[in-house]
């Protein structure tokens, strides 16, 4: 049994008019403004995250695991500016990740499932950020800013950075499965069921990265076609999908506890505005 809390009709209705007016209204009046802020933070985070890793620091796609020490030291030297600047940005914005996770946990609180799902997800993803993000950044910054160290030590940092980043993707496995189970059990229709199954697809590709601890060359190495490239494609599809799903969830949110209403068609709103 669930009691539906009906939000007041008039203040929750955005005014008709140009886009910037509607955005201004959402910022000042909308009861969903905190949710939109969290979603906007997610967009900002990922729009900085990928360019930093791929363009500024140039540490992805990952370099060869088989390089000799001299090449590894040279690789660090080539990035003596990009890595500190890029990872400086990552350290500054890394906290945004907590807001992203909170929005996902919110989606699970809005479902008809136990709150334990959301809390577990938050805990797991908070801890996963350490091996899945920060260890790489710390190891690569140390390697870059201490070039006078023994090349053996630099080589150790090189291995440590990429193995901790790619080789620990399994820590995200349980988080994806928690979200999947919550979506499949949910009766509030917060997300479509296929998105739950997509979580399973993503979780299964997290498993595939683990062999990079064993292989230094081939498709399962940390830069291999299966362990990195294919997983990146799957993760990219998953990433874009969950951002759109969260957007739709906020649009449909009514702050009740029952099923989320279906999205209103834009056409009807335009007609009403006319």
């Amino acid at each position, binding site marked *: 049994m669930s009691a539906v809390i009906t939000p007041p009709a008039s203040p929750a209705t955005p005014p008709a008019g140009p886009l910037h007016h509607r955005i201004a209204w959402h910022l000042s009046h909308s009861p969903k403004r905190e949710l939109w802020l969290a979603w906007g933070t997610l967009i900002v985070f990922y729009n900085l995250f990928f360019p930093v890793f791929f363009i500024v620091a140039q540490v992805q796609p990952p370099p060869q695991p088989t390089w000799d020490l001299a090449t590894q030291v040279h690789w660090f030297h080539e990035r003596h500016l990009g890595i500190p600047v890029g990872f400086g940005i990552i350290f500054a914005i890394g906290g945004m990740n907590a807001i992203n996770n909170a929005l996902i946990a919110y989606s699970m609180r809005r479902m008809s499932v136990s709150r334990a799902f959301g809390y577990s997800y938050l805990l797991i993803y908070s801890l996963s950020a350490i091996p899945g993000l920060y260890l790489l950044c710390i190891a690569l910054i140390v390697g870059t800013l201490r070039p006078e160290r023994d090349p053996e030590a630099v080589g150790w940092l090189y291995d440590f950075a990429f193995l901790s980043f790619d080789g620990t993707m399994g820590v995200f496995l349980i988080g994806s499965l928690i979200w999947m189970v919550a979506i499949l059990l949910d009766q509030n229709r917060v997300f479509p*069921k*296929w998105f739950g199954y997509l979580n*399973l697809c993503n979780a*299964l590709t997290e498993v595939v990265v683990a062999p990079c601890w064993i292989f230094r060359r081939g498709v399962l190495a940390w830069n291999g076609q*299966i362990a990195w490239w294919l997983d990146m494609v799957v993760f990219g599809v998953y990433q874009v999908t969950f951002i759109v799903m969260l957007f739709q969830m906020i649009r449909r949110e009514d702050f009740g506890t029952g099923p989320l209403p279906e999205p209103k068609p834009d056409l009807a709103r335009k007609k009403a505005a006319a």
Partner: protein
Amino acid sequence: MMADLADKSDRVRFVPGQPDMWAFVLFETLVFTAYFGFYLFYRTQTPEAFLHSQAQLDLRIGVFNTLVLLLSSWSVARCVQSARAGAYQPALRDAYITAFFGLVFLCVKVFEWARQIQLGNGFDSSDFFTYYFFLTGIHFVHLLIGFVVLGVVIYQLRSPAPPRSERSQQLVETCATYWHTVDFLWVLIFALLYVVR
């Protein structure tokens, strides 16, 4: 209006179970197609080495496991048929038979892995065996999830208060679709690893 509803209902029933599960089937098929593509590509690079390693696999074990999994697909299909007809006890029996076949498959697979490792064919001993352990391993994980899925089927069939809901029947069919997918992927893996020379 009624015609629209009927149309919608027909569309929804166009595939067995939740249509959403078919998105999973499609996506996983694409991912496995990529795995198979990489395998075939690297096979063309060193065909002799692949053939030499492949010859060390026992085709009989592969055939046996394929038959076992095909039988499990048959029993899960019977389970769906019985559940549709409202015969829940036979459906439940078929679900247990499916689980039994799945278990046989897993045991034979572990036996085969152990045998290959004893022969010196480990995960990283050759390119072929890397693919062999990888493809059979990831399929193994899918099958383990299949046991959870069968658990859902058994839970739905054992739940009291007949008549059972349409949602319950839909869940049984959705789970059966997952099981068939695992079987379908195995048939492709079997063909590539054991048969194609």
